[in-house]
């Protein structure tokens, strides 16, 4: 009842009817998503790149993945370049954030989202999604670190759960991909999700 009401509310708030497909929930697939940004502070952060990949059942559809570079309005902070490796010149031919997010929305549709610290990515994306559609991303969200926390706590109650990405990789037996970018991180999150799902925490 409540979800139905929320959906109704969102439909009412939806500014642009072109984005109505976001509200048509589609659980047959999931989308793992990751963004690289200029800052870790949501307010200041601007998008640099977005990677996303669909997950159907046990399969990560890396063959149908989504990856765009985004040209930020301000230069990235030097510190953040060290993390994501995207220099200003790398993103100088990127899309505008609005265009990039519109393409992403078309890619994810009504599918639930998966991500490692997804909350942050969604918060940054929502800055643009609100602008476009009038609402934040209405999709169901699956937080990998949260699922992992539940899983570890079930195994060893009262323990301190280490939620660093490298720890998750190791504990779940996920191989490190040869490079870090938004798409490969999205793929890695997808592999983590499948490993957690197998353990009953999907």
């Amino acid at each position: 009842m409540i979800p139905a009401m929320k959906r109704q509310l969102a439909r009412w708030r939806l500014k642009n009817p072109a984005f109505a497909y976001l509200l048509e929930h589609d659980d047959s697939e999931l989308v793992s998503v990751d963004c690289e940004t200029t800052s870790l502070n949501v307010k200041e952060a601007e998008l640099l790149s977005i990677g996303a990949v669909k997950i159907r059942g046990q399969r990560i559809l890396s063959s149908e993945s989504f990856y765009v570079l985004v040209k930020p309005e301000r230069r990235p902070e030097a510190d953040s370049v060290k993390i994501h490796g995207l220099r200003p010149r790398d993103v100088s031919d990127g899309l505008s954030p609005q265009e990039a997010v519109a393409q992403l929305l078309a890619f994810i549709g009504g599918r639930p989202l998966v991500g490692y610290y997804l909350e942050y990515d969604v918060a940054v994306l929502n800055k643009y999604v609100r602008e476009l559609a009038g609402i934040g991303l209405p999709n169901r969200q699956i937080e990998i670190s949260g699922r992992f926390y539940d899983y570890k706590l079930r195994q060893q109650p009262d323990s301190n759960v280490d939620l660093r990405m490298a720890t998750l990789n190791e504990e779940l037996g996920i191989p490190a991909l040869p490079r870090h970018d938004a798409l490969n991180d999205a793929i890695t999150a997808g592999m983590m999700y499948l490993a957690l799902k197998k353990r009953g925490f999907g």
Partner: protein
Amino acid sequence: MSRFDFSHPPFTHLSNAEQQTLENAADIVFFDEDEVILSPGTPVDALYVVIKGVVREMADDEVIAVYRQRDTFDARSMVAGHTSTRFVVHEEALVFALPRDTVLALTDSNPGFGAFFFASISQKFGAMARESGNRELQTLLTATVRDACSRLPVFAEGRDTILDAARLMKQRKSKSILVRHGERLGMFTTTDFRDIILADTPSSTPLHQVCHFDLITVDSDDFLFNALLTMTQRNIRRLVVMERGEPVGILAQVDILSYFSNHSHLIAQRLDRAESLDELAAIAEQITRLVSILSSHGVKAPQLGRLVQALNARLFERAWQLIAPAELVANSCLLVMGSEGRGEQILKTDQDNALLIRDGFEHPAIQGACQTFSDTLTRFGYPPCPGGIMVRNPQWRQHEQGMRDQLYRWVMAPDGDALMNLAIFIDAEAVAGDHSLLTQCRQYLDSLLSDDESFYARFARAIEQFDTPLGFFAQLLTKEKNGAATLDIKKGGIFPIVHGIRALALRHGIPACNTFERLQLLAERGLLERELANDVGEALSFLLGLRLSQGLAELADGRSASNLIRPEQLSTLERDLLKDALALVKRFKGHLRHVFRLGAIA
């Protein structure tokens, strides 16, 4: 850098752009334990590469192969579009799924990559040979006579005089000239001048009276290795290179030697000149070193086997000549048997030899000489045969009549030992003394063999002696960490092939001893399907090569060479090929079972 890691065979054959194509089409699939990825009856629409985890290939309840990180499965099924075996997840697995259409398109556009998929197994081995060829600068295997032969022949006419020849050779700085005399072709070399001076031959003598017409030739497309083999066997230093029936060059020993860092021919020469057993012992040591060098130059095991056989034969011959009194040498025939006889013994393993003595010949020194010979070989580094198949054992030191009686017993009352002895004797090769003694003995053996199919079935049955080696992989599966998982490639792979081919050769009266020659003859006479013969040959060649590199590594570590392979120490490609080779051994065993009706005998 690419998104995924495809930096392993067969993907190393792909260009960057092609890898990108593959990457764009790749999906990642997660499989839980005991899930079935491929099975008979469902179409195979992808090639899988293990990212993490373990997948086992099952035929009924038997594990045929195991795939781990970076392993690819299953090329053959993907090409065929279906599979006859099941691929089951053993330990939860993440795999790349590469769509069949994309992979097939790449095999079309990239022949090196394609070779992996359109496996006739032979092509696959060939692809590996090329790969190792990339690593080594120049392999003798691929070098042909044309590559090494740079000397254009200098021609003279048969009616020209010795003096003309001397001028010509000085002018052209040539140590040899070819002599045309009518239809015949001869050779005249600087060495001949020695004899001319000694015989006081006048310098006006026409060349055709002093040159040699019995030329030994080699085709310019022949492998350099074969040329070297010919020189070693015939004890000559030059070959005439022919192209379409015309002499086009002279291949000198030094030309070939420049391809070798060690000189097998020199070893052979030193063997012949050795005047004491101590000298021989020093040379025997060099043979192992030569093998190691040639092997690292990419010379394949079968060719090495033949070379080592030629060298060992001369070593044994020379040792026997030094030990035994001349009349004993003349009235007996020294045999090498088993793998030494077949020319497949590459590193020094057990001595397998025998002495056949002419009927009626007696000599007080026979027993002592044989004892000394066996001891000497032990000293040279050939360990005594645990089964006692050596000349110092009276059973293997017989007069012709005694050997004939023995053969008669073995054929007429074929129990286990008799069949084993027979198998060993069938591979006998004469190395010293009167070779006709062996020929006559073989003829007698052939006359004993009838069309009694049950005899051949009993003879062939030894291939069932050792179970399928792929079972060892199954052990590897269950416990990885406890000790080292090993696989005996002699029992599991080499023996069934060698013995199976031996049985077929015996059945059909094939005269050769070497397994590759037997295979060739069996295929030529239509007694074995050509494709199967090729595959069996390639598989044996690969297994022998694997055993050789294993043995060399063990010798380098100061251990003795064994037949035990540790699959986890092999490269992915080697493991892949080992699986293919063992699968082929299974297929061949099945073929033999059918041919000899092994199911029908108790």
